[in-house]
């Protein structure tokens, strides 16, 4: 064999798998936002788990892009005049991936598990007289108080979702992860090929009964144009960027801001805002520990806090990616309001803040600022906060740690000298902040509230008013009250609204803007 022939053969051998990979239009290679470490979107609320679960499990209702619930697994429903008796009928012929028929036994078991974990589910449980099967396809909720938001609760895409599982799986303790991944959604989860931390494979469920209505977010036709969807977990942004440019992957859910200009210059790629509801940055104070147990101290910090500083630190100079958000609800959503948010607007008042701090009794106590430095967003927020607090004369202890440790520290109600905390940062998905139901961070129920344990009867009254609101006008009025009360109490301080890009190869079409990656309707040429 001549040397050149040998070299050509060797080169062809090396290139062969890449050619076949590029030519396969029935396989979508997707880089998710994070590692898919588990597969239970009821026991956990991680977005990446929810995104995977939405392919595998179906819901009774789906939510479209106007946040309207639409029939999915149900054929229809009836409700009495005061929204306290809801009767549902399932579509006939629904089957799980293992071939078992979907019956009301599965639905009731699934809903019972979900109601323990979800805020809206808990609201239903608190009103529940009975959740009963009428026959294999019909079931009924009987409540002792009205619950007008029933359809939204059953269809919402905020985790924990009301995913319908076979009864034997749904019988799992709601605080333990399920061990079997059988759903009735458009894709099956291939457990054999699951390498946690590296790859997750979903295969088309051929018997999925696609609805006739047009697909819109989690509602309507979930028509899959791929036999396989491979999730490839890439911990390194630069590697994911190179892989996308090289055609080794088709779609990268959340490119890191540093490489976006490079991706935008590549003529084979599309780069656009993925989730129009973006995220709201959060400056979270512990209302139990001094000095933030005093509302004056919390307000003083808000007077000096510049959202622009936070947003530039989080997403950089791309002004298309962020905006000021002097409100608690998602900008652009129907409930958004700036009522009560004046303290976050206009020039920042450092002197006023110093004065208010003094008047509120701040005496230079050490502020324990917990900063998870392994997450770019929280690291950026923490750095800005350290600078801000120093500017207004607060004594900051910057505790650099990782996200896992923050999870432990923030759960402590102890004083700072016994391992407690004063401030940590996070961010809330905008889709979770469109109304009070999935918005855990807004709750001001004191001891039972989210970390920081804020307490405000006015906020809680507003939330209760929203739950009882019969129409959107009444909902908006309730949200205005919640917004004002939340600013008055400084439940937390929003540090701004920011968006993230998504990037995909130009031979992929059908990608829509949504709070979660929508795989149905996507095609590859």
């Amino acid at each position: 064999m001549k040397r050149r022939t040998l070299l050509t053969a060797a080169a062809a051998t090396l290139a062969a798998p890449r050619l076949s990979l590029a030519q396969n239009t029935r396989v979508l290679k997707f880089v998710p936002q994070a590692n898919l470490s588990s597969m239970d979107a009821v026991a956990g609320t991680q977005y990446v788990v929810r995104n995977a679960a939405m392919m595998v499990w179906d819901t009774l209702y789906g939510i479209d892009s106007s946040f309207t619930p639409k029939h999915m697994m149900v054929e229809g429903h009836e409700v009495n005049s005061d929204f306290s008796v809801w009767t549902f009928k399932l579509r006939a012929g629904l089957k799980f991936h293992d071939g078992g028929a979907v019956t009301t036994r599965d639905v009731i078991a699934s809903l019972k598990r979900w109601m323990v974990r979800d805020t809206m589910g808990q609201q239903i449980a608190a009103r529940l007289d009975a959740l009963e099967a009428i026959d294999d396809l019909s079931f009924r909720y009987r409540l002792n108080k009205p619950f007008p938001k029933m359809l939204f609760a059953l269809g919402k895409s905020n985790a924990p979702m009301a995913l319908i599982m076979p009864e034997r799986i749904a019988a799992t303790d709601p605080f333990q992860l399920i061990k079997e991944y059988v759903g009735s959604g458009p894709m099956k989860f291939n457990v054999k090929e699951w390498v946690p931390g590296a790859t997750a494979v979903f295969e088309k469920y051929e018997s999925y009964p696609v609805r006739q209505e047009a697909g819109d977010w989690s509602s309507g036709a979930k028509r899959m144009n791929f036999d396989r969807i491979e999730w490839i977990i890439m911990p390194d942004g630069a590697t994911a960027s190179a892989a996308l440019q090289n055609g080794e992957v088709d779609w990268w859910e959340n490119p890191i801001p540093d490489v976006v200009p490079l991706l935008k210059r590549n003529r084979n790629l599309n780069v656009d805002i993925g989730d129009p509801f973006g995220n709201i940055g959060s400056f979270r104070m512990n209302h139990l520990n001094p000095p933030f147990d005093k509302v004056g101290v919390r307000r003083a910090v808000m007077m000096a806090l510049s959202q622009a500083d936070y947003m530039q630190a989080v997403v950089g100079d791309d002004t298309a990616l962020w905006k000021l958000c002097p409100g608690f609800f998602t900008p652009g959503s129907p409930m958004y309001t700036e009522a009560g948010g004046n303290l976050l607007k206009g020039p920042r008042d450092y002197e006023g803040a110093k004065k208010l701090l003094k008047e509120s009794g701040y005496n230079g106590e050490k502020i324990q600022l917990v900063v998870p430095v392994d997450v770019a967003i929280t690291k950026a927020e923490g750095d800005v906060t350290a600078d801000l607090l120093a500017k207004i004369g607060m004594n900051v202890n910057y505790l650099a740690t990782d996200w896992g440790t923050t999870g432990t520290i923030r759960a402590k109600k102890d004083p700072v000298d016994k391992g407690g905390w004063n401030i940590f940062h996070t961010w809330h998905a905008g889709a979770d902040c469109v109304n009070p139901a999935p918005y855990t961070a807004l709750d001001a129920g004191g001891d039972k509230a989210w970390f920081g344990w804020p307490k405000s009867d006015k906020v809680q009254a507003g939330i209760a008013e929203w739950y009882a609101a019969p129409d959107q006008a009444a909902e908006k009025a309730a949200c205005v009250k919640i917004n004002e009360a939340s600013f008055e109490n400084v439940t937390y301080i929003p540090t701004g609204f920011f968006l993230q890009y998504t990037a995909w190869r130009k031979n992929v079409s059908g990608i829509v803007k949504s709070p979660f990656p929508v795989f149905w309707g996507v095609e590859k040429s």
Partner: protein
Amino acid sequence: MFAYICRRVLATIPVMAIVALFVFSLLYIAPGDPASIIAGDQASPADVERIRAALGLDRPFLVRFATWLWDVLRGDLGTSIFTNLPVTKMIGQRIQPTVSLMVITLTISLCTAIPLGVVAAWKQGSWIDRFAMVISTLGFSVPVFVVGYLLAYVFALWLDWVPVQGYTPIEQGIGPWFANLILPAIALGLIYMALIARITRATMLEVLSQDYVRTARAKGVAQQGILFVHALKNAAVPIITVVGIGFAALIGGAVVTESVFAIPGLGRLTVDAILRRDYPVIQGVVLMFSFVYVLVNLGVDLLYTLFDPRIRY
């Protein structure tokens, strides 16, 4: 010799026991909580607490340690807190990519570094010597991830010769398997190459100045024979020691390399498990790495006897 091997293998038992106790204690005291990660950012504190209890993380140290140790003694490394998959299965999924990476790295490193060190010593002070030393200094100084990015940019993105990332199992063809691993192996092997080349050069310089080498030359033995048969064999003991020690560095480097090139190996499994506080996986992987390291050291000790007949155990 056989008795020695038996003694050394038995000696691994207390070593592994100490490692097990150390790792378990370290994880117990270390802050962090898998329950809060499972629950997700939006979960309430009460939910996190319930998940902790359901996972058994609220049980006393001794109870947890005894349960884990008993399982390990029965060959059961436990189940991942997150995936519910057996730790042994998760390690099994990841062994091939890491072993493949190690084998290619070792092969490239040894095949390059030893001749380079020998030639550098032979031509001491020449441009070859200086070139070899520059390369090895670079290998020491440039971090693995920088080399990785540079290699990926040039050979994958620019020249489009090999893929940027990923791993193809060897069963799917040697070509794709090798194509996926060549860049990571070079990136990972550079520091190893530098280490071995330097130690080979230094040892060879010492050996080449010995009387018996001069005698061999006087007898008319060919240069290649002097270098690779007489001198290298006598210089082998320190080189083998460094190869053994370098193995630990290789395991550490694999963590970074596997992340940069998205290789689903044991290094990434370890990092992911640590970040998530997946205790059974961390404990299992560290135990396995310790065992492998003990075996490598045993192998090194046995190799001494092969190259230096004066060494007896």
